[in-house]
């Protein structure tokens, strides 16, 4: 069995590494072309989409509450950096841990159900977190946590300097995506996919399905949290938008547009979202319409997303 599987894995690994190197290079030189703030937001959203893709694409668990992890981590990171004056690396770590913990709580409750019921439970739990955010004094309701200091990372990198911040964000996002890639390509990832494809068969093979699903959920929550924590430091703001159901919807949108279950889907999905919001903003009220049209088109015409469609064309997994 292993011999049949191994050659395919290593050949796809080779050209996927090339594509990965190209994307990384593109992001590395992009600040020459466009201002870094836009790119940093795209990077944070890429990590967010990648973590969502891990859960939805590879474990087959479509959650409508991922904004809870993204947003809570944004708030925790902002609070840690501003009020407790933690250096950015600890703010990010603390926020990721908080998101992972929340993921554990959500996971234990939601894993018991599947499909639409799972989605509804995650949505409900996320809405509870949203209303906590509206009321909690440390989160400042409508105002959110503003003027988050960017600090100095590891005592070396002054994050208030835009370009330094950019490369730190690029490094963290790359590391996060690489980790997720490693998880996806590992035997653990194989088991997840088998659970996605036929849960009963996986159970009959002796896998403790709930445990695998829970670990995937916590991992996904943790990386969504890392993305949110980074975003708070980049934009220097954590607001209710980050924790609202619309951000959960953005995660779904990015993953679907990019290509659910693909490796590079999140990269494209995040770019598409940020581009629509930013470059088309001058179209005024048409932006929301375009948003909706893109969503509908993707589901009807490109059910596998952009990357999924290309992958089908060139007959290679992307």
């Amino acid at each position, binding site marked *: 069995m292993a011999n049949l599987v191994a050659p395919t894995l290593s050949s796809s690994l080779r050209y996927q590494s090339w594509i990965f190197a190209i994307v990384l290079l593109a992001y590395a030189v992009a600040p020459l072309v466009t201002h870094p703030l836009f790119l940093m937001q795209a990077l944070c959203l890429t990590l967010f989409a990648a973590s969502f893709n891990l859960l939805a694409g590879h474990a087959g668990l479509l959650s409508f509450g991922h904004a809870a992890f993204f947003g809570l981590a944004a708030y925790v990171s902002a609070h840690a950096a501003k009020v407790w004056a933690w250096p950015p690396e600890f703010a990010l770590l603390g926020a990721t841990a908080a998101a992972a913990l929340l993921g554990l709580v959500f996971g234990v409750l939601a894993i018991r159900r599947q499909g639409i019921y799972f989605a509804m439970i995650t949505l409900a739990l996320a809405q509870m977190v949203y209303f906590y955010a*509206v009321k909690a004094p440390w989160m400042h309701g409508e*105002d959110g946590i*503003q003027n988050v200091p960017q600090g100095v990372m590891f005592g070396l990198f002054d994050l208030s300097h835009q370009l330094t911040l950019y490369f730190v964000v690029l490094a963290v996002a790359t590391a996060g995506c690489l980790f997720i890639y490693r998880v996806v390509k590992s035997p653990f990832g194989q088991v997840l996919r088998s659970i996605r494809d036929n849960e009963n068969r996986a159970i009959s093979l002796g896998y403790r399905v709930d445990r695998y699903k829970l670990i995937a959920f916590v991992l996904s929550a943790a990386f969504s949290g890392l993305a949110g924590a980074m975003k708070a430091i980049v934009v220097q*703001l954590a607001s209710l938008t980050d924790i609202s159901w619309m951000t959960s919807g953005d995660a779904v949108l990015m993953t679907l547009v990019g290509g659910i279950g693909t490796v590079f889907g999140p990269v494209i999905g995040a770019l598409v979202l940020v581009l629509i*919001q*930013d470059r088309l*903003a*001058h179209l*005024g*009220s048409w932006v929301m319409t375009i948003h909706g049209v893109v969503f509908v088109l993707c589901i009807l015409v490109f059910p596998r997303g952009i990357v999924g469609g290309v992958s089908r064309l060139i007959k290679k997994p992307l």
Partner: protein
Amino acid sequence: MRKLTSAITSALVFLVCGHAFAQLSDNVVKIGVLNDQSGPFADLGGPGSVIAARLAAEDVGGAILGVPVTVVSADHQNKADIASNIATRWFQSDAVDIIVDLPAGPVASAVHGVGRTNRKITIVTATSADALTNEQCSPTGLAWRYDYNAMSKVFTSALGGKDTKWFFITLDFAVAVDLESKMSHFIREVGGKIVGSVRHPPNVGDFSSFLLQAKASGADYIALATAGGDLINVIKQASEFGIVRGGQKLVGLSMQLTDVRSLGLPLAQKLSFVQSFYWDADDTSRAWAKRFQEKAGRAPTEGHALVYSATLHYLNAVKAAGTDEPMAVMAKMRERPVQDSAVSKGVVRTDGRMVHDILLVEVKESGQSSSEWDLLKVVKRVPGNEAFQPLVESKCPLK
């Protein structure tokens, strides 16, 4: 050789003439209107604000010192992230010189901050956010609307008084709670009493328990510290409970002309609120409103008028300074009084607040309205220096 000669010649030419161009960066004066064009604030500002900014550009002849004035706009969807992105791109790559409008609290603060970082001018006309001219004040950020102090003082000077009883129905958000506490402070100062207060969660459909408490309290005035859809709902339900018929008066603390229009006169009649501008207040405002209506097909709101006023004041300041360098223009904006069709006797203070006369308006009764937008009457005009928070009380370190 010829290339070298032409290169040297053109360099010399630019050295001589470039001197005049260098004063106005990028050979264009660009106004950026950044607001909500698809959500709850689209009627208050939205595309109308773009028209208002263009009217201001028209009023300076479409050009300043030989350089054209252009207006660009974008929808920030009430998301601070999107707004920061667009503002940063505008300031850093698109040669936008000033950003105006900016509805919704955290969005306004975020862009106000982007302006501070990039040392470019931002004028918030669409929200009152006190913090912008207190803790968050910036040398290049201005606030063109009334602050909470002004709102509260104008209400209490006209409606409050010894032994008047007030009841608050407040949205459970920091902004509204802040406004309620400011209002309460002024009510007590003029001798009034707060007989009760309730907080309601956002987007609650049913206000019955809150309204019944208000009715039972026997208050003379029921202050509604809420806005948007909630405000409309509470007013509609108040009429169902016969609150106004019972003799109590409703006070919309944060109300707009568009709210009155969606409610309709029978429901909204006799509601009072505060405005920086009303189109029917006097001849100058009526004339300007006519110009606006021709382009926009509807009467202007306070938001539109303030965008016009802020943009015009900026453009005139650029003309007076002879440059669009932000600090020089800010100095001229502070020196010159704000006097235009929208705002009279306005002064730009060192903390960034534009102090001007505030109007207390009341909704007309159904029979009194003669046209679609003839909805309000001006009850009182309070001078700016009486209404606004005095400069000495401001927590701004720049004042």
